């Protein structure tokens, strides 16, 4: 058998954890090989080893049957291995072209950069694979989807033959995912080999030839994708059966909790409003979901409701009270909780302990404050309770520093804090981003439970599966406007995609 890549018995230990424990991965020439595993299973680590970012403690790597040493990305490049990283490796204030040539620059006199040939090659590649990138655009100005194409171009530009895609679809819209799959197939047809990491089983079913499953750093199995069902895959991944359907009763909406009325937001320097006359309501006992492609004003909507930004026009009411100009603190106090989109930037103080993070929004309340001093005993007791209740795992319980925890557990801590604040309105922005199925299931359950105990939930999500399974009502946002208000039962993913892409508008939302 001709393997393009063989990673044999790879072991890699980080302080405190064996991220890879005797893992073997064999990728055939010209195949799309999926790599499946829960969060923290060790997929990214394994790939980083292949790409030369880490050195394995044990094990060897063969390329086309020949054993090789990959000490750094330059070596990887030498063996024509390229990688699209889970966290993009792009310099935000460089142009697309500069990012692509970085590390393999052509130079002329006095080391001056010579970009003309590179530019031509980039344009050619962009055209050939329908990538549509502008080589002179700055990274910070282009969409996430476009950034990913830059990452792909980086590989193509280097004429790589073995392409690693680490969770490329997490940040893409359905249409973009389709396009990516298309591109991947095209690449295969040219004889390249692809390693494809994703948590989404239908993507694996759609494109992958074979799939290697790892769990908690250990090798589980390699299967022919065509021969196994999604259920089998997920069972192998988590070690037990998984329930994909969110159990929930019919929503029984009562009083209006949140009312957004004609909200318009145009920051200084922007030439068009990012939010345009947005109006909607969220009632007690329902989960309303804002769906849409990333960058259509969802973040801005949340910032305006939660008070980070001040709207240009329009009003926000909470329980009938106008809170448009009140401070964030006042909003929290009058019944608003937010699970922010960016957990590291907005959700946690990473250098605080779990316990300190648990009271981040309530430290000044009588439960935790005595004459200006913090009641540490009360804090710890409260935190221990939440940790127990929400199964937040960390080394030293309440005392653990948040920075040292895995992403999933950090997220659980935030969810615990926000839900337990028992606020009338819970705004949850991408609460399950990048988490594994187990964690996702748990968080979804909590959100539904919260709804059922007489609270209003505003969910903002890019994941269509989540949108359809969790919400009671879907509002689709496109270019800063609400373009549809639909019932999840009456709609499928395809149609939702049309609304999201702006090619269709809902009843009552016509132009």
């Amino acid at each position: 058998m001709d393997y393009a890549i063989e990673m044999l018995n790879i072991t890699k230990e980080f302080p405190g954890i064996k991220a890879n424990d005797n893992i073997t991965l064999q990728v055939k020439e010209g195949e799309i090989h999926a790599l499946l595993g829960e969060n923290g299973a060790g997929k990214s680590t394994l790939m980083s080893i292949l790409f030369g970012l880490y050195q394995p403690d044990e094990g060897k790597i063969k390329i086309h049957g020949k054993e090789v040493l990959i000490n750094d990305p330059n070596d990887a490049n030498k063996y024509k291995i390229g990688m699209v990283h889970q966290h993009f490796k792009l310099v935000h204030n460089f142009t697309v072209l500069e990012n692509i040539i970085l590390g393999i620059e052509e130079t002329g006199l006095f080391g001056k950069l010579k970009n003309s040939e590179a530019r031509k090659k980039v344009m050619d590649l962009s055209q050939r694979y329908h990538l549509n990138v502008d080589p002179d655009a700055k990274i910070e100005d282009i969409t996430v989807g476009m950034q990913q194409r830059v990452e792909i171009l980086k590989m193509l530009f280097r004429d790589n033959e073995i392409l690693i895609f680490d969770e490329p679809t997490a940040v893409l819209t359905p249409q973009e995912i389709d396009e990516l799959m298309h591109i991947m197939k095209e690449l295969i047809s040219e004889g390249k080999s692809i390693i494809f990491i994703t948590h989404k089983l239908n993507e694996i079913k759609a494109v992958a030839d074979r799939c290697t499953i790892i769990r908690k750093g250990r090798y589980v199995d390699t299967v022919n994708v065509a021969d196994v069902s999604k259920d089998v895959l997920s069972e192998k991944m988590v070690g037990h059966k998984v329930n994909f359907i969110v159990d929930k009763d019919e929503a029984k909406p009562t009083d209006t909790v949140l009312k957004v009325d004609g909200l318009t937001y145009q920051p200084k320097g922007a030439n068009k409003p990012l939010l345009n006359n947005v109006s909607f309501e969220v009632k007690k006992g329902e989960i309303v979901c804002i769906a849409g492609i990333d960058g259509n004003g969802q973040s801005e909507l949340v910032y305006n409701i939660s008070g980070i930004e001040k709207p240009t026009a329009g009003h926000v009411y909470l329980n009938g009270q106008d809170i448009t100009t009140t401070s964030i603190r006042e909003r929290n106090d009058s019944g608003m909780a937010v699970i922010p989109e960016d957990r590291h930037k907005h959700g946690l103080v990473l250098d605080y302990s779990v316990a300190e993070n648990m009271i981040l929004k309530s430290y000044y309340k009588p439960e935790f404050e005595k004459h200006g001093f913090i009641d540490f005993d009360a804090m710890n007791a409260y935190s221990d309770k939440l940790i127990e209740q929400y199964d937040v795992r960390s080394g030293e319980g309440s005392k653990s520093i948040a920075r040292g925890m895995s992403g999933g557990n950090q997220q659980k801590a935030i969810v615990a804090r926000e839900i337990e604040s028992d606020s009338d309105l819970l705004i949850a922005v991408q609460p399950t981003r990048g988490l594994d199925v187990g964690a996702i299931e748990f968080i979804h359950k909590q959100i539904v439970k919260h709804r059922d105990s007489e609270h209003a939930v505003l969910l903002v999500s890019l994941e269509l599966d989540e949108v359809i399974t969790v919400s009671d009502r879907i509002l689709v946002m496109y270019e800063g406007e609400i373009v549809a208000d639909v019932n999840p039962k009456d709609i499928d993913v395809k149609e939702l995609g049309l609304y999201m892409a702006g090619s269709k508008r809902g009843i009552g939302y016509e132009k």
Partner: protein
Amino acid sequence: MKNKSAGFFEKDSTKSVISSLIAILIGLLVGLVIILIANPADALEGFLIMLTGGFQEGMLSLGDVLAYSVPVMMTGLSIAFAYKTGEFNIGVPGQYYVGAFVALLIGVKATFLPDAIAWLIAIICGGLAGALWAFVPGILKAKRNVNVVISGIMMNYVGLLLVIRGVKTFIYESTGAQSLTVSTERAIPKFGLDVIFEGSSINFGFVIAVALCIVAWIIMNKTTFGYELKATGFNKDAAKYAGMNETKAVIMSLVIAGLFAGVGGAIAYLGGTGKAIQISEVLPPEGFNGIPVALLGFSNPIGCIFASLFIAYINVGGNYMQSLNIAIEVIDIIVAVIVYFASFTLFIKLMLDKFRNSKKHKTLAAKEGGNK
């Protein structure tokens, strides 16, 4: 494996102290080597004098150590306090100087205040002046995003020039081209400290300084206010998202830091030791000398007490070393080397971990070997 001593050595604070001690040891060693090269004949004697100088003349020297530690303890505390909330308060020299000026102005000119409390009011006003001086970078940072390092540097010179002008206009002692000095009656009282530390320059200011360090520690670690300040320092965005007023926190942390620096200046010039503000356009060195104190003390207010005492101690020792032919700048070199190695904390801690682990492995291996 989890016995008590292991727990102690695993504590982060223990590791910090150990790594500080290692830094100090290396600094002293480097100092010794340098003296040996420069003057082998006197080297050992000089080194010994430096190490024991703080006790050279008994309680007198010790009292001097305590007295000299006060200004840098306060400027160090100022830097440490702001550093905890994420800002590098390089404007300390200016804050220190305006504090000194206002305190002297009151000490000398506000004769309507009774002697018994004049010093206290002067210290408070000095602190407020320092706070005001730090308020400018604070508000510029909060409202206009001006980098605190650059505004601090500018405010240092503005303060220096204005203080000199102020001294010339209000409290000028023309025969010496310096400010008037506070009379012993209106100086900070000694409350018996002069009996314990006979002949030294110590006064009650030392107690105030230590008390302020402790208060700062309590504010930082025990109060909701400190909780807000630290949260802002670690992650401004998260603090804001959680409903804290991060603008206020930035301003307040700098203002409090400025207050400490101002009090430091006030205490230094109200000691009744004849210390006067000079009319020369040079920033007071105590300001910048606070930086190593804060850094050696891990930006911990209590750490600042020990760090300033240590620095004062070897400086007093260094002063006695002048009886030999060794340039006393070797003290500055030693302190610099110590600060340099203090920056290795992270590395030293990792090494400590490695060392412990390998010992663990060895004992384990030995046990297994024994079992076979």
